[in-house]
């Protein structure tokens, strides 16, 4: 539903209106908080809303502008933050019972940057517990519903951030992407999601899931808004030893260039192996994607088939590497320093209390992955499983490097299927894992990938993924913005109106 309410505008428009005095940050922030009050009962995107904090920041922005101060490009534009990112003084649980009630004593680097950019923080969004899942059904607290059809999942793990932006409860949000947790929710909710180059921004203050893969990134309703947020949060951080000390790719400039609708001279690769056999997407998804490819060709792009044979093995490779790292990272939840403690009745030993705490505090998917990771790292299996997966990861990287010697970017559907109905894939974890079939290779490689809405299948949104070379985030935004330029109305603006209370 497109309209003229404050919440219908793009983040770029909101920022401009605030800067030039045509609107106040207070009014815009309040409009979003009122929207949350009105409809989040029906959607469930938020775990925590900080009305007072958000309005206090908004007021500061309005006062600074009244004094004639120059603020950053998104000053005064409100934002929602995935609950896996720590926020000083605001509850942070990663949607797990094991962290229920924990109030972090510090901010993640990306939150520090959001605060320095004077963006009011609306609250924390729902997700699959510890970012493990593709439907947000593994949240320990509640479901998040897809604003396009409230009987369906909003994707995951960042279903709350995607649903909040799709339902216009926030113009922007932060997600994190380990295997597709920004892009797949973006695709199934008709929003824009970007996984930046690994190391392009800081992981300091992200609750760790898989440290060699976790990447925070922007969630928005269009490429330019996402690019503006991308530049706010990105750049080197000495507190994250894996962050890259290099200039942030010029993604805002690239989004503006893309919006001119000219892709002449741009070579786009399509992966041969994605089209074959069991890796094929639903016919409706393929149709929407191919219509998008045709549009890109009309804008001047040249399509080149590339072969990436190791992509076929990306899913099992990921499900060895990510759970192995997770089993190690999640060892810290032992009932001693934060969150839940169970069974501490004077009769149980420390070790028993740890086991009882972890049993009570973790949900089923987290337990499965901890057990899987423990298996893959155990003596006798580590070479056959974890070690083998790390070598296949090298082959996946090499496939990307070979492809990028031929093409500027690679395109694919973002996810093989549209948003499914609740409960459809929770019985068989492997069926859930297939949601990330096309997004995982990029995480293995470390390059950037964005999902841009491309069309509908059965009335539900479909996303087109653009993958770029390491530190080539700009090309992904350029191609995505070019695709948007072919849409009379942005797909994100055609979501059905949610009836509030």
């Amino acid at each position, binding site marked *: 539903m497109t309209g003229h309410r404050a919440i219908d505008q793009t983040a770029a428009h909101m920022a401009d209106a605030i800067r030039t005095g045509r609107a106040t940050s207070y009014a815009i922030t309040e409009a979003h908080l009122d929207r949350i009050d009105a409809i989040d009962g029906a959607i469930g995107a938020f775990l925590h809303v900080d009305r007072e904090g958000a309005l206090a920041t908004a007021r500061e922005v309005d006062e600074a502008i009244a004094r004639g101060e120059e603020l950053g490009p998104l000053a005064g534009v409100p934002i929602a933050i995935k609950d896996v990112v720590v926020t000083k003084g605001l509850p942070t649980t990663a949607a797990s019972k094991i962290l229920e009630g924990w109030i972090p004593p510090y901010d993640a680097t990306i939150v520090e940057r959001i605060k320095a950019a004077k963006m009011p923080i609306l609250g924390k969004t729902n997700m699959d517990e510890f970012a493990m899942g593709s439907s947000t059904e593994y949240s320990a607290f509640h479901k998040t519903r897809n604003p396009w059809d409230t009987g369906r999942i909003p994707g995951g793990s960042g279903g709350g951030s995607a649903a909040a932006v799709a339902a216009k409860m926030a113009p922007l949000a932060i997600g994190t992407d380990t295997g597709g947790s920004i892009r797949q929710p973006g695709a199934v909710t008709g929003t824009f999601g970007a996984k930046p180059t690994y190391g392009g921004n800081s992981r300091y203050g992200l609750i760790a899931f898989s440290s060699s893969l976790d990447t925070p990134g922007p969630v928005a309703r269009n490429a330019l808004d996402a690019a503006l947020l991308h530049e706010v949060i990105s750049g080197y951080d000495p507190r994250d030893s894996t962050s890259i000390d290099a200039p942030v790719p010029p993604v805002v400039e690239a989004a503006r260039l893309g919006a001119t609708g000219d892709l002449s001279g741009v070579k786009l690769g399509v992966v041969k192996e994605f089209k074959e056999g069991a890796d094929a997407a639903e016919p409706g998804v393929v149709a929407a994607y191919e219509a998008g490819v045709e549009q890109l060709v009309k804008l001047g792009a040249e399509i080149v088939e590339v072969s990436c044979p190791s992509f076929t093995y990306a899913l099992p490779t990921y*499900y060895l590497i990510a759970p192995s790292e997770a089993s190690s990272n999640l060892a810290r939840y032992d009932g001693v320093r934060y969150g839940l403690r169970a069974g501490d009745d004077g009769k149980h030993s420390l070790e028993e209390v740890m086991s009882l705490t972890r049993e009570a505090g973790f949900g089923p998917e987290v337990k499965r992955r901890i057990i899987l990771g423990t298996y893959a790292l155990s003596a006798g299996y580590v070479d056959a499983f974890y070690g083998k997966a790390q070598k296949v990861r090298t082959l996946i990287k090499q496939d990307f490097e070979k492809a990028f010697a031929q093409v500027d970017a690679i395109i694919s559907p973002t996810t093989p299927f549209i948003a499914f109905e609740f409960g459809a894939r929770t019985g068989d974890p492997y069926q859930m894992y297939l949601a990330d079939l096309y997004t995982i290779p990029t995480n293995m490689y470390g390059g950037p990938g964005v999902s841009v809405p491309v069309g509908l299948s059965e009335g539900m949104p479909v996303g087109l993924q653009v993958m770029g070379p390491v530190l080539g985030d700009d090309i992904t935004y350029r191609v995505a913005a070019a695709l948007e330029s072919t849409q009379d109305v942005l797909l994100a603006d055609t979501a059905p109106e949610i009836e509030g209370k």
Partner: protein
Amino acid sequence: MSTISREEVAHLARLARLEVTDVELDAFAGQLDVILQSMKTLAEVDTDGVQPTSHAVPLVNVFREDQPQPSLPRDAVLAGGPDTAEDRFRVPRILDEEA
């Protein structure tokens, strides 16, 4: 043939300090078997002479100046703990009394 037994899952859960229930063990054993079957396909891949990748974007020798930085205030950190006493995290007994 099943790749992982119920007993193995129980052993792994113990190693990972998870006090799993019998119902969970039954469910996990079947589910993990499906997942591990897919992982067996990696054995098909020829990785002779291939170097493992541990990180996406390789960086070596990340140094910084050794300058003291302020730590978090003790009370702010302890405030997150489930049980604290005498400015420390309190834990249940670690050693058996007879030990």
